[in-house]
């Protein structure tokens, strides 16, 4: 083709590189500049805009309704997926059954925990807070979590194809976004209701099924309302990170609230029995909030919908593939400030090892969510030991293991990001094992701080702080090693035989990968568990803890991607092959 030249004035012109002449139809006029940034006359409405200059087809027909577009897309997808109605119903049945089994297991565990905990009547509590108070604090944590995660995921979004192909259509977006706007409130309600029902029915188990159902229903409605509220804020242009930060603050405030309650001697004798009429009012209020959000769906900006949809897609993919690291990245990045950071001059860097350490520290300090997670996790053992009805060996062991694991996850952010993008590590003149060792420093220091808070509280509860502090310091490397092992775990292997779990059948390879990190944490904490059960720090156990920590560090910094069993098996096979060759 012989290409034509553009037909405008000065199309091939030169020498007009500086300000174009005033008559240039492409240049802004001085009148335009004069009014820039100043409020002008009332803006013209888009309804009165001239018709499109370029038309396609033989004319125009009325634009279809948004629901018909949504239904068309869904119908084609259903047809192509080849799934018959029976298969869909089977999947639904399986999902409901799985959730019911998981709920039953959780209820059973909570009941077992209750029977194993010290029985102290509320009126006989010498100090501290009551078990219902702790459950109330957990309810606050659940509310904060729902708000935080709801905001990080949108809560309303349109990801991938929906953003590209739906949002450009001149249809009322409400019809397109309605299902997406309801999805998260429903999930949040189910999760919040289930958690409170399990705690009330399993751990407290004082007031019968009606109480449990009403409390669970209330929690479900409150959680759904919080997500709907986050949707409102989104429709008003409030940045997601602001709403997420509010949720994080609520989470951070929960353990402080518990400590305050302990100091003030304020305790709940029982969780309130929510009257049915109040539940009905709440339900109507939530329905009203949902309707109100529905009216505002069309006001959510396209860029917000795209960002939220992208995060939700990433998070859903991570959940389906059981990749908690990817899920963490999705939730962290979704609330990150887009603003450029102040450039640190990295004056502390003296060489490759310190470069890794400083980089990890910078990543951790720039992630408020992980700092909050670390602080809250350190306060969990403190809350447990000031709750007489929880302060038994079992309660303390569970508190140490759970809060240690949660805290450890917060410290491994640098390692997780390095695992995702190892190119920077490869630029350093360090072996892979040396990089791993350097990556141990930040989690190690952070978990030492966690141990000081957690084990000081346990020591105070046991009546002898110093030995417990020493035990905590000795066990801190275990957590750091577990953080590193979890961060550098390989992608799940979906091959291999299936193992039956409460969540359904899973390939053994997946289970093996998912247990990398928690395995070191649990096995490395056996000496701590023994001491808690004995109620004292035995010097011999302290020595064992030091040895176990050294082994944990060796395992955590190992760069091998195969398990010990795999290596043994390979060695055996190689030896047999060698034997056969010689024969």
């Amino acid at each position, binding site marked *: 083709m012989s290409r034509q030249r553009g037909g405008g004035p000065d199309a091939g012109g030169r020498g007009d590189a500086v300000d174009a002449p005033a008559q240039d139809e492409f240049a802004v006029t001085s009148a335009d500049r004069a009014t820039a940034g100043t409020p002008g006359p009332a803006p013209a409405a888009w309804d009165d805009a001239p018709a499109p200059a370029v038309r396609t087809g033989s004319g125009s027909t009325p634009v279809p309704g948004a629901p018909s577009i949504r239904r068309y897309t869904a119908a084609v997808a259903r047809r192509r997926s080849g799934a018959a109605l029976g298969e869909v119903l089977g999947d639904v049945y399986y999902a409901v059954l799985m959730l019911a089994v998981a709920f039953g297991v959780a209820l059973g565990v909570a009941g077992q925990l209750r029977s194993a905990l010290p029985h102290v009547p509320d009126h006989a509590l010498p100090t501290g807070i009551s078990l219902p108070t702790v459950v109330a604090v957990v309810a606050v944590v659940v509310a904060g979590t729902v708000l935080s995660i709801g905001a990080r995921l949108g809560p309303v979004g349109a990801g991938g194809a929906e953003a590209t*192909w739906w949002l450009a259509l001149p249809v009322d977006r409400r019809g397109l976004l309605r299902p997406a706007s309801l999805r998260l409130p429903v999930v949040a309600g189910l999760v919040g209701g289930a958690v409170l029902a399990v705690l009330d029915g399993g751990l407290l188990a004082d007031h019968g099924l009606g109480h449990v159902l009403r409390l669970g229903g209330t929690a479900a409605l409150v959680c759904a309302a919080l997500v709907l509220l986050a949707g409102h804020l989104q429709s008003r242009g409030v940045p997601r990170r602001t709403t997420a930060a509010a949720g994080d603050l609520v989470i951070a405030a929960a353990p402080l609230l518990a400590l305050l309650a302990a100091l003030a001697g304020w305790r709940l004798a029982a969780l309130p029995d929510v009257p049915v009429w109040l539940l009905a009012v709440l339900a109507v209020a939530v329905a009203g909030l949902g309707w109100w959000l529905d009216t505002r769906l069309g006001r959510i900006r396209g860029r917000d919908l795209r960002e939220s949809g992208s995060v939700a897609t990433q998070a859903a993919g991570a959940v389906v593939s059981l990749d908690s690291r990817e899920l963490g990245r999705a939730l962290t990045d979704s609330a990150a400030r887009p603003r450029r950071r102040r450039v640190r001059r990295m004056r502390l860097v003296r060489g490759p090892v310190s470069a890794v350490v400083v980089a990890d520290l910078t990543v951790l300090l720039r992630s408020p969510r992980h700092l909050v997670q670390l602080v809250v996790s350190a306060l969990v053992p403190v809350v447990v030991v000031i709750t007489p009805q929880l302060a038994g060996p079992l309660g303390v062991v569970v508190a140490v293991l759970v809060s240690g694991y949660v805290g450890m996850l917060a410290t491994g952010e640098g390692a997780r990001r390095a695992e995702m993008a190892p190119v920077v590590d490869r630029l350093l003149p360090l072996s892979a094992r040396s990089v791993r060792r350097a990556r141990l420093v930040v989690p190690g220091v952070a978990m030492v701080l966690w141990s000081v808070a957690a084990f000081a509280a346990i020591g105070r509860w046991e009546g002898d702080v110093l030995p417990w502090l020493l035990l905590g310091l000795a066990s801190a490397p275990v957590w750091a090693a577990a953080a590193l092992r979890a961060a550098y775990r390989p992608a799940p292997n979906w091959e291999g035989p299936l193992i039956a779990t409460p969540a359904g059948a899973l390939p053994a390879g997946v289970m093996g990968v998912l247990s990398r990190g928690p395995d070191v944490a649990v096995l490395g904490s056996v000496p701590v568990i023994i001491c808690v059960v004995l109620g004292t720090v035995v010097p011999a156990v302290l020595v064992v803890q030091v040895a176990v920590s050294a082994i944990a560090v060796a395992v955590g910094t190992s760069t091998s991607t195969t398990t010990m069993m795999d290596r043994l098996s390979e060695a055996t096979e190689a030896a047999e092959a060698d034997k056969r060759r010689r024969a």
Partner: protein
Amino acid sequence: MSKQQPVVRAVDLLVGYGGEPVCAPVSFTLPPGRALALVGANGSGKSTVLRAVLGLLEPVGGRVEVLGRAVDERETGFRTRVSSVLDDDAYFPALTVAEHLYLTARGHGVQGADAVVEELLTEFGLTDHAAALPVALSSGQRRRLLLAAGLVRPRSLLVLDEPEQRLDVAMRDHLAERLVAEKQAGGSVLLATHDPELLRAVADRAVLVADDASRLLGVGDAVDALRPGVL
């Protein structure tokens, strides 16, 4: 629309992320039936300017109008008149090539959508792939699908972000012809490009987007600016 009413007017438009500008302010107007190209080095902010014009990004400063109205992609009137092809690469996995185009055409109320879609499938060399799912397409074919989707619907303004990407030479030539025809039909084209041939064939003027100062250039100067080592 009066003849003098520009389709796009950007006055000291400053774009960026999180309040931080990525380039110097740009000022230009795009009259009806004309094409304006944005040129500049990689990362200079061309796509960011386009996103601000499309309402996908809040300007850091200055202002931008389309058809004399504030840019607001939430308005159906805006979406009716502004068509864009950005660097999106997302498709409904269960919809075929043709179904993506039908969805767009019928969603915009195009009468005789069948004929329009058939014509565009032929034009962009996608007839043999009309029944294919996007996963079976090459990246170039997916790009052609996006371009066809941008053209299957009514519009006053066509915004293209490096439309030449992943297209072979013949298809680039065809695209240039198509965009010239777009102008002749009264449509306006705002595009970011690195292709001197496309620039020369389609654009009437160009804006050099840069860190220090963004300038309005003639096409010849813009083509010179695209030469290696200049930007």
